[in-house]
């Protein structure tokens, strides 16, 4: 495999958690080196909070901290624009604004950025976007197409394997709690991971609403909320419907103040009945102690209800 001298930086935040396999395999196939920012820590969050507008969501603050950490560490930083994946399949408008938002914030840094644009409402699908990304990195179109297809296959296989693992967890004995959250929140080591870690340490099996068969979840999500138009929320809605019979409780985990979650989680609490539910909003001030107390009492309530306490 030939090696290009270019390195591409991948911020370990936001859509990284959804597309990391797609990105890493794509660049690897093209012989392009990637650098990934380190796991989120206090420093990254603080740097991001300084850059972000105060009111922006916790996830954006974390994201900007990761971008900041990559500046001058690579030739390009990848900031994708994912606006729409089809009718009623939009992303939060923040993912639509992200490349320009970062560009404007870092315009004096001298850092170069790389983007690709997936916007089905303007008939631009993912493959076209990756071909253009390949062109920007001077890869031959044929090679870029092959790299994209290999990467897409790897991504789907990886997701499938994760879904299967969830299926196994579903059939295990023990108290099970479903976490309904965006992958970039629940998997982030500095924020969401504290929740799953605590649940495990308390002997609870955490399940994930977003780790389900995506096509099926998108369809089922419409049953719960027919006009919900956010791709990620629809997957979670579908995941809740699919798993609610298998779990003892649901945690609606969101980042303060996540736009879609502020509305969709309200709808979920109004429409999904008969299962204990905890609404947990994380922000940059949330200490782990406060979160753990709330989780502890939630687990107690479930055990009490089931007569196991």
């Amino acid at each position, binding site marked *: 495999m030939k090696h290009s001298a270019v390195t591409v930086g991948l911020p370990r935040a936001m859509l990284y958690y959804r597309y990391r396999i797609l990105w890493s395999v794509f660049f690897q196939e093209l012989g392009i080196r990637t650098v990934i920012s380190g796991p989120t820590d206090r420093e990254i969050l603080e740097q991001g909070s300084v850059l972000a507008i105060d009111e922006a969501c916790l996830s954006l603050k974390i994201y900007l901290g990761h971008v900041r950490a990559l500046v001058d560490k690579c030739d390009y930083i990848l900031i994708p*624009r994912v606006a729409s994946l089809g009718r009623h399949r939009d992303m939060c408008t923040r993912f639509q*604004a992200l490349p320009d*938002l970062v560009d404007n*914030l870092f315009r004096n840094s001298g850092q170069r950025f790389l983007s690709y644009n997936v916007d089905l409402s303007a008939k631009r699908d993912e493959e076209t976007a990756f071909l253009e990304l390949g062109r920007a990195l001077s890869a031959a179109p044929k090679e870029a197409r092959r790299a994209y297809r290999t990467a897409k296959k790897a991504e789907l296989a990886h997701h499938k394997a994760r879904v299967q693992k969830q299926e196994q967890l579903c059939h295990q004995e023990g108290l099970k709690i479903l976490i309904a959250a965006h992958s970039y929140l629940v998997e982030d080591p500095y924020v969401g991971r504290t929740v799953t870690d605590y649940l495990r340490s308390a002997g609870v099996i955490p399940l994930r609403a977003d780790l389900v068969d995506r096509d099926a979840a998108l369809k089922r999500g419409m049953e719960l909320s027919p006009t919900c138009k956010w791709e990620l929320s629809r997957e979670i809605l579908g995941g809740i419907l699919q798993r609610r019979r298998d779990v003892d409780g649901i945690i609606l985990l969101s980042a303060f103040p996540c736009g879609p979650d502020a*509305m969709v989680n309200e709808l979920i609490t109004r429409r999904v009945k008969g299962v204990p539910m905890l609404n947990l909003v994380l922000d940059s001030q949330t200490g782990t102690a406060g979160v753990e107390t709330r989780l502890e009492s939630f687990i107690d309530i479930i055990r009490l209800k089931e007569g196991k306490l």
Partner: protein
Amino acid sequence: MAERALRKLSFPRYAEYNCALKYITEQALGCKYVMPPVLTRRTMELGAKHSPEFVCTPFKTVLGSMIEALEAGADTLLMTHGLCRLGYYGELSDQILRDLGYQFEFINLAEYDMSRKKELLRVIRRINPKVNPARCLAQFMEGLRMVEYLDEVTAEYYKGRGFDPTGGYDRAYRDFLTAMFTARGRADVEQGYRAVKSALGSIPLDKPAQPLRVGIVGEFYTVMDAFSNLEIEQKLSDMRLEVHRWMNVTNQFLHYNGQRNMHIKIADLCAYEMGPTATANIWYARECAERGFDGLIHIKSASCTPEIDVMPVLQNISTDYKIPVLYLTYDAQTSDVGLQTRLEAFYDMIAMRKKVF
């Protein structure tokens, strides 16, 4: 069989556009329009009480206005679709109102694909199956003409109001609104429009050669709705400022020349469309800066995602053109006095700059 009583339709308060909604409902759709009461603190409190905490403020205002419309006798509520969270307002407010126990029919445009004419016809048939399409279309266009007049007159009003020593501007604008809210046909609309145009044109303005000019940009609901932005345009014109705002229904929808053509001028600031009204706001902010305006004011409701994301671009415009920008965020608690203080400070600053430079 007794004839079915007319459907009593309502749509939440939105700036002064309810006059056109009333006109279209009554003249084009052959229903009765229930005018929701003017927005007040009570509306906001009602809405905020039953809304999720972190939803954008217009949701709370709109929900409060829907409750007041139901109290005023509406049996059908209409809600629009939209590109940001607005597109989800319908389903969530419907659920909240049902949980509160209200009974009504809800027509949520987000359930239809409004880019298709056939779907639009389905909506019209659902509202009133007996509607005559030709007459409906003609009257609908009249309603849109009313929107155009309203936006044109409102822009002229706030541009000149600060320099009218007679109070004639206020009277003429008030009379114009009354005429629009009571119009029952094309003749009424035209007459009201002509009256206000000649009244505004005949008032001699006491205007300095170089008045202070501010441009207003921001989020679609709060920037236009005087109750929601605490009458910022009144306050600014009271300080003898020329107030310019591009963002209104006419410019954003009826005369919109499309993302592509508008984007050309700002392509160096942003490569893509950043949000539903981002392109227009960035474009207009730069336009104001290039025309030598003295300041810009960015208005949005708390946690409005697309407008938060526009702010870094506005900050760059501010640096490039050395134009001050005042960023205002409105939530259910924003106080009138606090706003007044900030506006006065902003005024002092831009007035001082004008003298120095």
